[in-house]
């Protein structure tokens, strides 16, 4: 490095470090304000932005995006000549721009976010981040923020092209807004899901599996959103403004709340075992459920077709969600660390209503089961309301059938989740078990519950078709099928319900171990430290921290 260059670098560093006297006062004031504003930004976002904007991946993607947009602008315009002058040509050009924008937004950015978190784990930098003051949630949100920023840059870069396409007529402004909004929301949701997969695999072999899974999710998302968007561009919006608003709000509510669930789940994977990793997830799951139930309830206003579609979709989604999360909650460790016990609700009412949010398989079992039951009950009520709407089609599914199916489904959940608890409990005696194993245990339990009685029945009937009997009572596939067809015999119905009730109340008897632990008082030393950190003066005659003395002001002898 030449002397001049070295001097210039030194001067630059002096400016960065606030040492330079050559900087005008007004500029220093602006710098101070900027530094203060920068301090309120998530440090991960700052680092990721610095890193991402210098990374080869960003430079290549951004250059390719610009090049592709320019190329399509020229090629598309030439292809549309001469009708571009007198016919609406926006849909064709916009389809191309959509593809150019969707690839980085729905594929590249989520994949880069996944790789970024996975890279932190691989390179050991996540451990270094873990010993800082940053919370796992801040780390995840920082990654998400960085992804959002990159998306914004891509979006801004392509904005002139979209504006150019709009001037060619054929796509209205609300449709354009809907399209762009859809792309941003879908991109962010896919990013959150991709980040969720990153901490799942800590060894190389399973990383390949998770990468494949992420790719699959991203490609599925790209295809689903792409087909919807291209239909929207080519054929226009088929819905009324009210319906459009409803679907937009529904999609937004779904994406925001499910993204919150995934953020909490990712943060939980980065949180040490001693801390409470479950409550935040349970709260967000509940919020997600409430949001979707609210949407389903509002759908009744929009008529039978929209209502029945929404109720059906919400029911299916929430059922799958509560069964999966119930399996994972039932697989949680039963150990209550002192840290968690400090956070237990202290009052009677608090313990009554909030204990279900505290970590542990017992509370998780009840929480998931109760929410599944509430979801199904509300959905059956909404369904009964929907079929009373003036524009309702002739219903072949009587309400009684819905209620029977509901009772059978909930009962089977309680039985299967109890099985998960038993299996995971046995495994946990000798191994470290991750909650994801609950999903596998649930799959095994459900498979055994249906396959075992069916196979035995088949064997005793010389492998010929046979009819349903009480011996098939654990066979949930067959039983639910009969319940849906209103063919489930009464005795079998009550047997299934009795099984569910037995599993639930039997479980309640075992809840004591979870509910009984009393809240632990926070140690005085911790309170002191928290007070010190929050700047509250300690009422102490002598300072507790000897490092409060700076330089050589300490006395040679300790104070008497």
């Amino acid at each position, binding site marked *: 490095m030449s002397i001049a260059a070295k001097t210039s670098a030194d001067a*630059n*560093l002096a400016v960065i470090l606030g040492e330079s006297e050559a900087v005008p006062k007004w500029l220093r004031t602006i710098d101070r304000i900027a530094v203060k504003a920068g301090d309120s930004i998530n*440090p991960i976002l700052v680092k990721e932005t610095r890193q991402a904007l210098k990374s080869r991946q960003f430079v290549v993607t951004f250059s390719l995006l610009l090049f592709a947009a320019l190329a399509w602008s020229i090629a598309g315009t030439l292809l549309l000549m001469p009708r571009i002058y007198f016919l609406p040509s926006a849909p064709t050009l916009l389809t191309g721009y959509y593809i150019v924008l969707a690839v980085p937004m729905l594929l590249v950015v989520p994949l880069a976010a996944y790789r970024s978190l996975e890279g932190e784990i691989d390179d050991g930098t996540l*451990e*270094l981040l873990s010993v800082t003051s940053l919370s796992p949630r801040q780390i995840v949100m920082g990654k998400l923020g960085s992804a959002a920023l990159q998306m914004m840059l891509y979006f801004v870069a392509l904005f002139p092209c979209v504006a150019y396409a709009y001037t060619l007529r054929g796509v209205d402004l609300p449709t354009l807004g809907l399209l762009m909004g859809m792309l941003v929301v879908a991109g962010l949701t896919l990013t959150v899901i991709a980040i969720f997969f990153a901490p799942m695999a800590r060894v190389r072999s399973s990383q390949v599996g998770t990468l494949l899974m992420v790719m699959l999710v991203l490609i599925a998302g790209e295809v689903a959103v792409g087909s919807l968007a291209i239909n929207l561009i080519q054929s226009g919006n088929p819905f009324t403004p009210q319906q459009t608003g409803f679907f937009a709000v529904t999609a937004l509510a779904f994406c925001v709340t499910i993204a919150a669930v995934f953020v909490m789940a990712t943060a939980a994977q980065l949180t040490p075992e001693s801390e409470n990793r479950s409550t935040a997830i349970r709260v967000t799951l509940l919020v997600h459920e409430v949001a979707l139930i609210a949407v389903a309830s509002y759908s009744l206003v929009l008529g039978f077709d929209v209502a029945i579609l929404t109720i059906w979709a919400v029911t299916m989604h929430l059922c799958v969600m509560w069964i999966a999360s119930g399996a994972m909650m039932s697989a949680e460790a039963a150990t209550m660390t*002192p*840290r968690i016990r400090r956070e237990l609700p202290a009052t009677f009412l608090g313990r009554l209503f909030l204990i279900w949010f505290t970590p542990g398989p017992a509370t998780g079992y009840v929480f998931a089961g109760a929410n599944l039951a509430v979801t199904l009950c509300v959905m059956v009520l909404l369904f009964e309301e929907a079929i009373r709407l003036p524009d309702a089609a002739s219903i072949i599914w009587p309400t009684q059938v819905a209620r029977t199916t509901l009772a059978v489904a909930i009962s089977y959940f309680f039985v299967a989740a109890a099985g998960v608890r038993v299996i995971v409990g046995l495994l946990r005696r000798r191994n470290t078990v991750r909650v994801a194993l609950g999903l596998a245990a649930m799959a095994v339990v459900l498979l055994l519950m249906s396959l075992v009685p069916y196979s035995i029945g088949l064997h005793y009937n010389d492998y010929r078709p046979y009819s349903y009997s009480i011996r098939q009572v654990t066979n949930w596939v067959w039983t639910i099928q009969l319940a849906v067809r209103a063919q489930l015999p009464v005795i079998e119905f009550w047997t299934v319900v009795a099984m569910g009730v037995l599993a639930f109340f039997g479980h309640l008897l075992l809840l004591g171990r979870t509910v009984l632990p009393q809240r632990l008082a926070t140690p005085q030393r911790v309170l002191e430290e928290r007070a010190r950190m929050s700047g509250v003066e300690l009422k102490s005659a002598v300072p507790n921290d000897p490092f409060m003395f700076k330089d050589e002001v*300490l006395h040679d002898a300790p104070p008497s």
Partner: protein
Amino acid sequence: MNATSKMSLREAIRIGVHGEQTPCIELRRIYRYFGDTKAVHDISFAIPRGSVFGYIGPNGAGKTTSMRILATLDLPSYGEAFIDGLSVINDPELVRRRLGYMPDSYGTYRDVNCWEYLDFYARAYGVTGADRLKRLRWVLNFTGTRNIAEKPIRGLSKGMKQRLCLGRALIHDPSVLILDEPAAGLDPRARIELRRMIGELASQGKTIIISSHILTELAEMCDRIGIIEQGRLLATGTVDEIQSQRAEHRELQIRLLSDVTTAANLAKSRSDVLQANIDGDLLRLEFSGDVRAQADLLRALVMAGCEVAEVSSHQKSLEDVFLQVTEGLVQ
């Protein structure tokens, strides 16, 4: 700062304002098992405020595991660990604010230059505004990385990366430093520089726990050491204490003008002589007695007519003690 004031500062910090020696770092019956592997087994020790604790052990002994537990990165299977009276298990977020950790890997980022790297960690530790710039300036100057501040990390030498990583551990001015093999792979000059920096940090009153394989350096730097093998703490105390505890097998070298064989036979008849070897006119004895026993042995030799020309006693070095205490077993 002169040596006297340095000492008084360190001593005062060690003693604490309450006038008693409060441990800054404390491990109480720590166990860490990975399946059947007992990485750490029933380890307890306390490190006074302001001391430098050397953690010695062969590869796979459990040093890194116990340091990771202290750094809030791992949870013990059983036991408790405290830093400044705060539990590393139950209150990790409070512990982290006063803890600087430097693992045996660098943990650096691509596409980031040195000051950006330090700036990021300062932000991550919640150091804001003018304080951050002040800390950045101090760390860049202290670690001697100021002239490479704007260089990308990926082009740095191992020694420079090590300095940068020490800077990262110091960026939030922690009172406790956990340094896992900081001198590994460094050239002699870089090692001397590192030793100087650690000495300076210790003189500022920071409590440091450091693991290394270079025992001579640890003996010079550390106030206290702990020897660990197969997850068990075999010895702990000041270097002098351990050396004297394990000094029962000193080597005595006696040069005789005549009757070396007689002297050897006489020595062998004593219970405090474990081994006697003749090397020309030199009699080498593995001696377990104290100074009085040594005088008694010499008197016996002279009384037996042996002409003793020269006697020398070798106190065992930290390396000798280490080799004696450990068995070279790995898990």
